[in-house]
């Protein structure tokens, strides 16, 4: 019975203890529904608390387990997962991201006649899927986790179902998301078909396994079907990370989605795409015949993303659209880092560091946006609504200043270090054109980030006659924002903790 032996080996490689964080997050998500079922009266207070406390406990335990037992390496689950330092750091990234999104969701959903529990449930399920995605080593795993994430996002984007703008955003995301999934699937099918062609030497039936696929591509990297498949897969992911020319959905979807979801989409969904890019571009498609295509192509996409994002953001008056458009330029930076990682090994860590720095700085900005915005659709989202924010709430003004400064890459904030690392990687990889465009786009981005800051701090907006009320932020809600802003400043000076986490 050869079949049984196969199942036996597969069952033996199921090391469930390796994915305890994902299992815990999934069980936490289920327990939220149980809590709602058992104590329906207290759910609005209890459920966000349980979600946040649970995620914090899992995050701390994960970090402690690294200290205690070290990071495990290698394949598990019959080659579906591949544990590595990269996967572990992305796990931490998504846990922290999910944690802060729960807080943002708590702030955004307060005082609205919208069900709460489902929001936290979906955020947790998506977080678990994101964590698995970063460790996947098999196209089936990649596709299933990516779909779990994307379907969760379809619901989350249109979460304010009584607001037409949110529904419109959801529909646009659904259609373009479906298109990108189609591209990705078609690419996977072509790669699998090419790798399984028995007429080619070194054909493999395990073409969905990334290592087996790479072994095949070493010999047949110039095979037409394989190249077409690789391009389609990369384009499918490019939709998710929103790099040029697959960025057209970004402004509308970001504007229509609830602020917490915009932050989730802008940070975690983008990071998931780049985790996949790193897994695929630097570990799977890194055979010479393919890098001769991917490096120029992705460089070009990065250059156009940098320019497109920054130039369109220059005149943007809506803060959510502005964050989306500037996010495209950040995606350009990250893509440049991925390209550099094809040549320079440590550039992977530059990308991861940039992702962390982007997460902390954008969460600072999105956190402030969640407090400034009003309960009606589109209320408090324009740049004018930030007039004199520092005078209205010194705390929010400071956090916003730190976040925007870090996004712009002003030393000594963490965003500066992230950009510097990517620039060094680009220099070492010899990609001087990308380096030049990157530096130019930093200069452009300073215009709109500082314009926003000027409105918030000196308040010489066009409409100074209007009365802007002070914003009160209660102490418990200040703590997470203060922590995020604190990390943004702290990591700008001392990178040792994050570097230790990343295994640098």
């Amino acid at each position: 019975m050869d079949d049984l032996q196969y199942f036996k080996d597969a069952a033996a490689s199921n090391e469930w203890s390796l994915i305890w964080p994902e299992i815990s997050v999934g069980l936490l998500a289920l327990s939220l529904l149980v809590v709602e079922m058992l104590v329906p009266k207290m759910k609005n207070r209890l459920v966000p608390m349980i979600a946040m406390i649970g995620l914090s406990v899992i995050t701390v335990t994960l970090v402690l387990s690294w200290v205690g037992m070290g990071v495990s390496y290698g394949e598990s689950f019959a080659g579906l997962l591949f544990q590595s330092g990269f996967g572990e750091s992305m796990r931490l990234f998504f846990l922290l991201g999910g944690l802060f999104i729960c807080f943002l969701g708590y702030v955004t959903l307060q005082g609205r006649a919208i069900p709460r529990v489902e929001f936290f449930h979906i955020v947790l399920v998506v977080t678990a899927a994101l964590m698995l995605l970063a460790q996947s080593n098999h196209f089936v795993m990649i596709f299933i986790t990516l779909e779990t994430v994307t379907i969760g996002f379809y619901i989350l984007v249109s979460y304010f179902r009584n607001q037409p703008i949110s529904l419109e955003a959801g529909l646009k995301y659904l259609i373009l998301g479906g298109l990108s999934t189609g591209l990705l699937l078609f690419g996977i099918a072509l790669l699998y078909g090419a790798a399984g062609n028995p007429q080619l030497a070194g054909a493999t039936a395990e073409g969905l396994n990334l290592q087996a696929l790479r072994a095949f591509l070493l010999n047949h990297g110039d095979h037409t079907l394989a190249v077409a498949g690789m391009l389609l897969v990369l384009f499918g992911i490019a939709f998710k990370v929103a790099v040029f020319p697959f960025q057209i959905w970004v402004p509308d979807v970001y504007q229509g989605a609830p602020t917490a979801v915009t932050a989730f989409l802008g940070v975690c969904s983008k990071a998931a795409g780049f985790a996949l890019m790193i897994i695929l571009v630097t570990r799977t498609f890194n055979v010479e015949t393919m890098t001769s295509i991917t490096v120029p192509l992705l460089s070009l996409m990065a250059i156009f993303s940098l320019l497109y994002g920054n130039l369109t953001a220059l005149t943007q008056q809506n803060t959510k659209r502005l964050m989306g458009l500037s996010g495209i330029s950040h995606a350009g930076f990250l893509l440049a880092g991925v390209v550099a990682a094809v040549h320079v090994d440590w550039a992977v860590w530059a990308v991861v560091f940039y992702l962390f720095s982007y997460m902390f700085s954008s969460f600072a900005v999105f956190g402030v946006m969640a407090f400034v915005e009003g309960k009606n659709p589109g209320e408090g989202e324009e740049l004018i609504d930030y007039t004199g924010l520092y005078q209205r709430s010194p705390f929010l003004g400071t956090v916003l200043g730190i976040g925007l400064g870090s996004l712009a890459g002003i030393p000594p904030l963490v965003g500066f270090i992230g950009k510097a690392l990517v620039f060094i990687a680009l220099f070492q990889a010899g990609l001087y054109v990308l380096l030049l465009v990157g530096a130019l786009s930093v200069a452009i981005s300073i215009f709109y980030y500082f314009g926003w800051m000027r409105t918030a701090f000196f308040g010489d907006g066009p409409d100074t006659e209007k009365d802007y009320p002070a914003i009160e932020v209660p102490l418990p809600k200040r703590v997470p924002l203060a922590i995020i802003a604190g990390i943004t400043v702290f990591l700008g000076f001392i990178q040792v903790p994050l570097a230790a986490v990343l295994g640098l």
Partner: protein
Amino acid sequence: MELVEYFPILVQILLAFVLAVVILTVSQIFGQKIRRSLTKDSAYECGIPSEGKSHTRFSVKFYVTAMLFILFDIEVVFLYPWALAFRDFLAAGIPILLPVLFFIGVIVLGLFYEMKKGALEWEK
């Protein structure tokens, strides 16, 4: 497979295309010519003018019931091959009972959740 071996598929595609073109042209040439008018172009509903919207709305209860049906249907679909492989797997010492119990447990939890949420009460 060589590209030549896909030739029958190409023939089939062409055949479908040609057939469609032929049928449309032939019926255009030999078919009866009628004068068009508003009445003749309108939708025919047993000779009676159509009433109401073409897209009527259904209660969400139908969808909930259908979704729940699919959910438990899938569970049963999973259980059949599981039952077939159960004995062989146990003999070979492969864990098979606990994973499926976990799976059923999650589904049962979902069932209780639906009951508590009132998804199964039709009159509500």
